[in-house]
């Protein structure tokens, strides 16, 4: 949704499957999106649909997921499935907590990244060097990491001032950017409540107010990933290892090496994702809360491409952020209308594409959403919390599916094995 506009820069895609959308068209789509949201906001009076605060919350929620997704993207592009992102994130949270409370935020981030990288190394060692099933290794890391983190936490944090057995002492925050008067000026416009203009202002303000430097870093990394993987030598070789390792081998490419690079990069990014959760707060047992898996989902959602992955992470983050931020619950109710509209659009597209049944299903669900909106004036909290998951699933189900995973993804490669 709206937050995507900055993340979803059209990234180089293989010629044929390119979603042939020019930046201009993207802007157009985003603009229409904002307009629709604006109308719904004005109609329902649910300002938190796109208030600057909600957007901030969305960005906060989306960032770690996007980083986790990026982590998955790196390793799977080189043909190594990484279910262990969650575990590597946990290692990251521990590292960030340990170094962070002693030597400051950035030291924390650095050490968090390092711990994640160690996790990646282990995964690479087991899957690439030994050649064990990637999923087993990932699952094992997801078992190992939390145990290790908590074990060490009990050992190292219990007696640290302000620490506990399951939490580190507070960790300082990395810098946060707020564009001084721009933010305020946008704030004024936002408060006017005008159609579109105020919404745009709110969104922009959300992006330029109290923005964590790590979020900025994440955006940079997403774009950089697109460039490195699709525009450089390293990238071509790395992707070739995920598509046809034996072909790469036969041209003198050291497949093991590139797989190692990719998986370690993956671990480092997972570590960064973990660090993001820690800085400004503290390490806490169970802090990652399944974000690694969500990131993985976002990556598949995005068809193993940075842009799409960012789109998926943003969709989830937006829903989750708004869901948390929206105190009154009115925004989530208004969300039903948004979903209904989106579904109707899908229905039209699918009908055009000749998928009558899908279109029908979309219409029915849309109708249900609207009915629910009309029937209640407060949604049950428990179900509201399910929205991010349900909506991601809905989009996956109804958006057209021509996903294309790297051809040798998850396959075990042995040098000279062909």
């Amino acid at each position, binding site marked *: 949704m709206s937050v995507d506009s900055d993340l979803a820069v059209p990234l180089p895609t293989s010629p044929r499957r390119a979603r042939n959308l020019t930046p201009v068209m993207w802007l157009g789509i985003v603009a229409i999106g904002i307009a629709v949201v604006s109308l719904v906001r004005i109609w329902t009076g649910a300002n938190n649909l796109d208030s600057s605060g909600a957007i901030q919350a969305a960005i906060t929620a989306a960032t770690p997921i996007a980083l986790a997704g990026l982590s998955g993207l790196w390793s799977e592009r080189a043909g190594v499935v990484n279910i262990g992102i969650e575990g590597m994130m946990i290692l990251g949270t521990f590292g960030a907590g340990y170094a962070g409370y002693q030597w400051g935020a950035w030291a924390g981030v650095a050490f968090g990244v390092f711990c994640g990288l160690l996790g990646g190394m282990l995964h690479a060692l087991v899957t690439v060097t030994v050649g064990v099933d990637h999923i087993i290794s990932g699952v094992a890391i997801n078992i190992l990491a939390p145990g290790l983190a908590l074990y060490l936490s009990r050992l190292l944090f219990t007696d640290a001032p302000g620490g506990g*057995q399951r939490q580190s002492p507070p960790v300082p925050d990395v810098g946060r950017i707020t564009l001084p008067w721009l933010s305020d000026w946008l704030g004024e416009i936002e408060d006017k409540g005008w159609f579109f203009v105020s919404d745009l202002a709110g969104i922009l303000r959300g992006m330029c107010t109290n923005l964590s430097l790590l979020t900025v870093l994440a955006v940079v990394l997403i774009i950089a990933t697109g460039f490195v993987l699709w525009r450089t030598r390293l990238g071509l070789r790395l992707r070739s290892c995920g598509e046809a390792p034996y072909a790469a081998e036969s041209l003198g490419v050291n497949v093991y090496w590139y797989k190692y690079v990719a998986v370690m990069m993956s671990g480092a990014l997972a570590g960064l994702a973990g660090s993001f959760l820690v800085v400004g*707060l503290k390490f806490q047992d169970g802090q990652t809360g399944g974000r690694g898996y969500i990131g993985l989902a976002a990556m598949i959602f995005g068809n193993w491409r940075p842009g799409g992955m960012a789109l998926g992470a943003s969709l989830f983050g937006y829903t989750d952020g708004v869901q948390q*931020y929206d105190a009154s619950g009115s925004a989530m109710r208004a969300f039903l209308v948004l979903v209904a509209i989106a579904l109707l659009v899908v229905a039209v597209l699918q009908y055009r594409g000749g998928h009558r049944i899908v279109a029908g299903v979309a219409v029915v669900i849309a109708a249900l959403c609207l009915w629910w909106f009309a029937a209640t004036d407060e949604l049950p909290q428990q179900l509201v919390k399910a929205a991010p998951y349900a909506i991601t699933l809905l989009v996956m189900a109804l958006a057209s599916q021509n996903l294309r995973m790297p051809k040798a993804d998850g396959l075990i490669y042995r040098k000279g094995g062909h």
Partner: protein
Amino acid sequence: SGSSSSGTTSAAATTAASSAQSAASSAATGASGSAGAAAEPSLTGDPSSVKVGLAYDIGGRGDQSFNDLAAASLDKAKAAGVTVVGELTAGAGEPDSAKTDRLNQLVDSGATDIIAVGFAYATPLGEVAKANPDVHFAIVDDSSLADVPNVASLTFAEEQGSYLVGVAAAKKSTTGKVGFVGGVNTPLIQKFQAGFEAGVKATNPSATVTSKYISEPPDFSGFNAPDKGETIATGMYNDGIDVIYAAAGGSGAGVFKAAKATGNYAIGVDSDQYNIPSLADVKDVIITSMLKKVDVATWDFIASAVNGEVISGQHVYSLKNDGVGYSTSGGFITEYVPDIEKAKAAILDGSITVPSTVG
């Protein structure tokens, strides 16, 4: 853990004034007697005769919440010469059999008195207590075993304490909008919510209370998700709410952070969080804390064991026996103390009955 005990001592100090008066309920007398003595140990018996075992809930020692309060009184007992035969922590999502075994292990290691922290132990403790009639047990936050002879049920009237901080919130709020952030959406935490909402409404009928929970069971991450606590609180504060009651364990830190960032107020829970070192940099937004004196309750049990008249049956820790209360550290609510005390009196004389479930 040292932190929270220091927190409670000061809490006891601030509320010592009201701890004198207590009604004649047989259960309460035993409790209140030692409750008054909560500040410093009053052991008439021989400490070495008692061997204590403690079974924590998932959080375990160092959760900076109610497990730590239990740990605090355990440390106090240790200092007084009581033998501690074991402290065991529960694992996440474990089956009852693991809890049964935990309690049995404490029995095997010679414990004469065993404390189980958290209602999750109810069913297992029921079995183990039956099997070991000569061992004394106490369970925090559960009353279902009240009539088992060798079990003391230590429960709290969280709604009463929450009612009082609700009064404080209503008074402190200038916008007439206050908020409640619960850690995990369970009946136990709903007691906090119910009392708080009642307190606010009674004080300022036109005030609105917005309540939100961080996670839904069986996902107990809501007690240690400060990031989510922060987002939710920020949303509330930006919505015009200016006081939030955080009954969310470790996630409270996020709420306090949001309060500081937006220049609003928050209310702590369990111990006097104003005095917790890890919260030092946000203490100036914590106007009060609802005190749930798990340390007092557990100490009562240990002390009674040492003194040879070990307690059993139901012990409700309420305003009556000063088992729950509120803190005034930082002097944010000094001007409202009269109103709060009035409400307290009304609760004590029964003219107000605080709901313990959300309508």
